[in-house]
């Protein structure tokens, strides 16, 4: 009967058939299973991260809303996920402070707390796209980002306890993983709104996201949000660790490299329909995510003609700063080839650039901080692929 058509719904919410014995033919005729202490997802649900040795990617094509389930939050580790006993874990604050202190997890949860829903995006998210369309799916192109509700204590509160000396200008944050992952951070900026977090989406942090303690800096590249954090050392200058010299610096066409590029600039992507999905003619809700490391998303526009014309997408309220914003646009696909794109504008007026504009300025050697408009091509057969405009 449909006069309008179908979308890639089965791809949007993928599921395998549960084993026959798991699914009653008529569930109303058979008593169900009992309540349980800690639930797990339905056996047929198989959305999963794509793991490599160093990271895993969030399956945004299969997710809804803005919260990333903790089990599917992307990972990026520099030498694996450490196993940490929270009762033994300590945070050491030293260097240019009045009183070097150590804090147990119990100490830290006693302080006044704060909760914020924030994205964390790896600076390398979409990094392979610098060289041209590379990822097949949105999980491959944009899977190094996720959003959680984070709870912890403001970094400023804990540093004040130790007493910041007047000449302190940078802080070294160090993890207790096997990379002792380390970044130098400008003190004035992080004291503004960084959090020492012990909870993610209501419960204790997941091991992959820094259990039991993680630094979270709203809007900054993920690697600055030091996981398993055990040491904060205040100093006068950046410590110039390998992770801010050899890595996490962006090579420009002239051979110089940009350093301390912390903020993740505004970016958006259509998560459905997206690469690897297939649609049929008729009504298709274009769904995606937009975010900015400089604050709130002000507007998202969608094009279905490769950027010739743009229409304003609907933003799901509440629109929060430094947080994924879900956008939606109702589209009717008539069966012709189409290039669909989204672009966002943040509250500072910054407009997500086209790929052409971005690489004109930056070249293609940057590795990190790729935030160009993503183009998905819908073929005449409804199949969606990653293309360059």
């Amino acid at each position, binding site marked *: 009967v449909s006069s309008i058509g179908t979308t890639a719904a089965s791809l949007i919410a993928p599921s395998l058939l549960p084993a026959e014995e798991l699914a009653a033919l008529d569930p109303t005729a058979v008593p169900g299973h009992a309540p349980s202490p800690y639930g797990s997802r339905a056996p047929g649900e198989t959305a999963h991260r794509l793991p490599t040795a160093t990271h895993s990617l969030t399956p945004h094509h299969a997710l809804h809303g803005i919260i990333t389930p903790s089990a599917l939050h992307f990972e990026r580790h520099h*030498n694996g996920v450490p196993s940490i006993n929270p009762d033994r874990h*300590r945070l*050491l*604050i*030293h260097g240019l402070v009045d*009183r*070097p*202190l*150590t*804090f*147990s997890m119990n*100490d*830290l949860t*006693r*302080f006044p707390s704060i909760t914020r829903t924030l994205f964390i995006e790896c600076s390398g998210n979409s990094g392979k796209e610098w060289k041209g369309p590379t990822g097949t799916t949105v999980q491959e192109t944009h899977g190094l980002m996720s959003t959680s509700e984070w709870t912890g204590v403001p970094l400023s*509160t804990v540093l*004040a*306890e*130790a007493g910041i000396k007047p000449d302190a200008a940078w802080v070294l944050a*160090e993890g207790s993983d*096997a*990379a*002792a992952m*380390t970044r130098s951070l400008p003190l004035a900026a992080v004291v503004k709104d960084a959090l020492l977090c012990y909870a993610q989406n209501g419960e204790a942090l997941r091991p992959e996201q820094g259990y039991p303690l993680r630094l979270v800096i709203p809007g900054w590249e993920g690697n600055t949000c030091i996981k398993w954090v*055990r*040491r904060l*050392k205040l*100093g006068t*200058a950046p*410590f*110039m*660790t*390998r992770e801010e*010299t*050899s890595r996490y*610096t962006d*090579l420009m*066409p*002239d*051979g*110089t*490299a*940009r*350093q*301390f*590029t*912390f*903020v993740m*600039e505004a970016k958006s992507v259509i998560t459905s329909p997206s690469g690897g999905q297939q649609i049929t003619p008729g009504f298709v809700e274009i769904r995606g995510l937009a975010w900015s490391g400089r604050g709130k998303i002000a507007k998202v526009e969608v094009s279905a003609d490769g950027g010739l014309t*743009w229409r304003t997408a609907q933003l799901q309220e509440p629109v929060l700063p430094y947080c994924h914003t879900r956008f939606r646009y109702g589209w009717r696909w008539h069966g012709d080839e189409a290039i669909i794109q989204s672009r966002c504008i943040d509250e500072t007026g*910054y*407009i*997500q*650039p*086209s790929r052409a*504009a971005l690489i*004109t*300025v*930056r070249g293609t*050697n940057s590795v990190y901080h790729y935030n160009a408009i993503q183009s998905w091509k819908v073929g005449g057969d409804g199949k969606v692929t990653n293309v360059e405009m």
Partner: protein
Amino acid sequence: PPGISMAEEARYGFGQPATEADIKAWNIDITPTGEGLPPGRGTVRQGAAVYSNKCAACHGPTGTEGPKDRLVGGHGSLATEHPVKTIGSYWPYATTLYDYIFRAMPFTAPQSLTADEVYSLVAWLLHQNGIIPATMVVDAQTLPNVTMPNRDGFVADPRPDVESRE
């Protein structure tokens, strides 16, 4: 408790004073000025031996073969289509090499090397990259004075840098 100051009263009072031992156990970072470098020393020759035992399997016999990160070479490649970022071509500070090798290498046993081993590996890697002579002794005094070829290759973040118009 008696004797507590007013300033201390204003704080929450959570946490314990960090002892010298607490700090010493974890204070492993090395700054560009050499702060944090421990006593000890190393030579290029000693470094060659340690490298071949503990590093070559992952980084290749000469530091160029991999399979893991290439550590040597790439000079002059940064402005080309195929930049090769190594210690020699890219790293701005020699001190970072001590910091990173001790904190993170060998990948399977981080923080297992002695100071002399690390100084030696730093010496060998700097020499392989043509930065120091084969005879140089690397220690807390000499290392901060090594000038890396790409020392001035880094610039501050100028963003927003891309004009985006409709």
